[in-house]
């Protein structure tokens, strides 16, 4: 099978993730978009690792997973704490830091 299909899929997933982040207001959904982008990049890394026969890409994919896990922990904690104080999970309500 042509490896470039994986790359196309990766690009598609990344675009969907980016669109989710940009367009949706619910913080949980935005989070999912971010996860989607991270995994799209993981897919691209693994694909390139296979294409070049070099394990570095796979190693980096693991790193990304670790970072993503950590980020989920911190991110969700922030979302929960914001929800507790503001009774909303909309990212547009968290706009105090401006101008």
């Amino acid at each position: 099978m042509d490896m470039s299909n994986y790359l196309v899929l990766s690009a598609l997933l990344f675009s969907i993730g980016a669109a989710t982040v940009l367009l949706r207001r619910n913080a949980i959904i935005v989070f999912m978009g971010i996860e989607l982008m991270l995994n799209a990049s993981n897919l691209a890394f693994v694909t390139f690792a296979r294409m070049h026969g070099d394990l570095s890409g796979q190693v980096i994919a693991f790193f990304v997973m670790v970072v993503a896990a950590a980020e989920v922990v911190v991110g969700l904690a922030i979302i929960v704490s914001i929800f507790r104080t503001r009774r909303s999970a909309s990212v547009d309500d968290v706009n105090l830091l401006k101008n």
Partner: protein
Amino acid sequence: MDTSVIDSAWLLVVVPLVGAGILLLAGRRADAWGHWLGVLASAATFVLGAVYLLTLLGWDAADRVVDVHVGRWFDAGSLVVDVGLRVDPLSLTFVLLVSFVGTLIHLYSVAYMEHDADRRRFFAYLNLFVAAMLLLVLADSYLLLFVGWEGVGLASYLLIGFWNHVPANATAAKKAFIVNRVADVGMIVALMLMFSSFGAVDFASVFAGAETTDTGRLTAIALMLLVAACGKSAQFPLQSWLGDAMAGPTPVSALIHAATMVTAGVYLVVRSGPVFTLAPDALLVTAVVGAVTLVFGAVVGCAKDDIKKTLAASTMSQIGYMMLAAGLGPIGYAFAIFHLLTHGFFKAGMFLGAGSVMHGMSDDVSMRRFGGLSAVMKVTWVTFGLGWLAILGIPPFSGFWSKDKIIESAFAADGGHGWQPWVFGLVALVGAGITAFYMSRLFFMTFHGQRRWVESDDGSGLPVRHPHESPALMTVPMVVLAVGSAALGGLLMVGGAFASWLEPVTGHVEHHEPVLPVPVIMVLTLLLVLGGAVLAWRQYGASTVPVEPPVGSVLTRAARADLYQDVVNENLVMRPGQYLTRSLVYADKKVVDGGFMGAAGALGLLGEAVKKVQNGYVRSYAAMMLAGFGVLVVVVLLVWN
């Protein structure tokens, strides 16, 4: 020859300085005894000075210049300056004059300032003055001299403005300070020129270097020194401050603005003699400045009704004589110092007399409200009279010996050739006549003629005064100075003693023949002096003096206004200067500040515009990041291909 005695010369400066320090730092605690400490410090310097004089007199004339090395001041690359004192006949003459007259005036002030709450501060400043003045005359380099120079300027400023709760006095102090700063620029430039020409600023190196330096450079140095001297000695055109300086307490006028500090300019010129002698043009300028000031002061003195301002004008005129003598070159140096010495005595005596008169006349200064005081203030009258005879130059009083010598030397200017002897000689001669007139006017208006005051109000409109003789603490210094005014000149003149005493400094000079025979000059001078005195007696002694000053002629009005010196200064220097600074401030505000503020404003506006982007919505930030990433990718791809 053992110089170990002289090695302690630094005490001369340190003793009064410590006195001033104690008086200033001890504060009100020293109010009770502070004035006596001041007197003691001053008297101690006189005793020290006398010891050094006796030591020097015991040596050969050739050995009488002693340099005392005190320590290294600073070492800045090629400029190394040591703190050193030069004890020689010239500096010792000044030390004795300053400390002797100073001690008498300290003593006088104890009584004169008795009712002043700030008497202790007054004595602290007086001691500070003595210390600075002695440093000035003892310094062995121009830089150290400059320290003393500024020190006396500071003391003068503090003492003119001693009663600074009166705004006019504070203004007078400021005026004196500022005019002196103008002159100090001359001193600083002279120092720079010396350093660039000789690489040193001590007397020995400068005088040695002067021998081999071109005349142009020496003329520049000498002229700059002359500018400095003009400011300190109130010589034309920097004379305007001296009249206003009379705002200070009278003992200050006597000590600083008559006997000692104002003569520092003459000292500077004579001390720099080796430089001036090699720069004939600068000498000529010095003589011209002296001649102009001599007449200027004399004319002003004829019209003033304020007793202290008349004496100030007279001081200016007499220092003009000294400058003229100094400007005559080596033949005049010794006579300049000689006249300085006798003048120090009789002028200080007369100022103290004026203070005594003011003391008895409720601090009035207008001579038009005096008159007939000889009957009530006998000691003041006699002592003042001796000073008056001395300044007139009546033989055998002091002034005769010194002023006559200056007039004689003026007639021998430039070796007795050309126009100089005639011009300078006649100016000095006529000046003596005018001096006789205005000093006699002062004397007769104050002590003789009708009383223009009353003991009790009789409805005549005249002021009520209760004149009385001053206490002994005030009259004793006056008596001592009067004895000096009478006898000092003659004593020092015996066998040319003073001139040969100064010879190690001023050098030996061959006698030049004046263009007129000496007896003729002497007779002419005496005739003019008598003429001036008789004229003054007819106008002010024998006839009625109006209490309200008459309008007077154009010349009188001009002389009353100090020949419009302030108007000239204000229109020629002050207003253009103010205009310049104001336009510079305006330019600074509009152009420099305007540029910066404009740039800052533009950046601020840019910030205002850009901050709209910061809207707080995470999604728009994410969109921007994405767009930025997109641009980055495009750029990278473009560069890659």
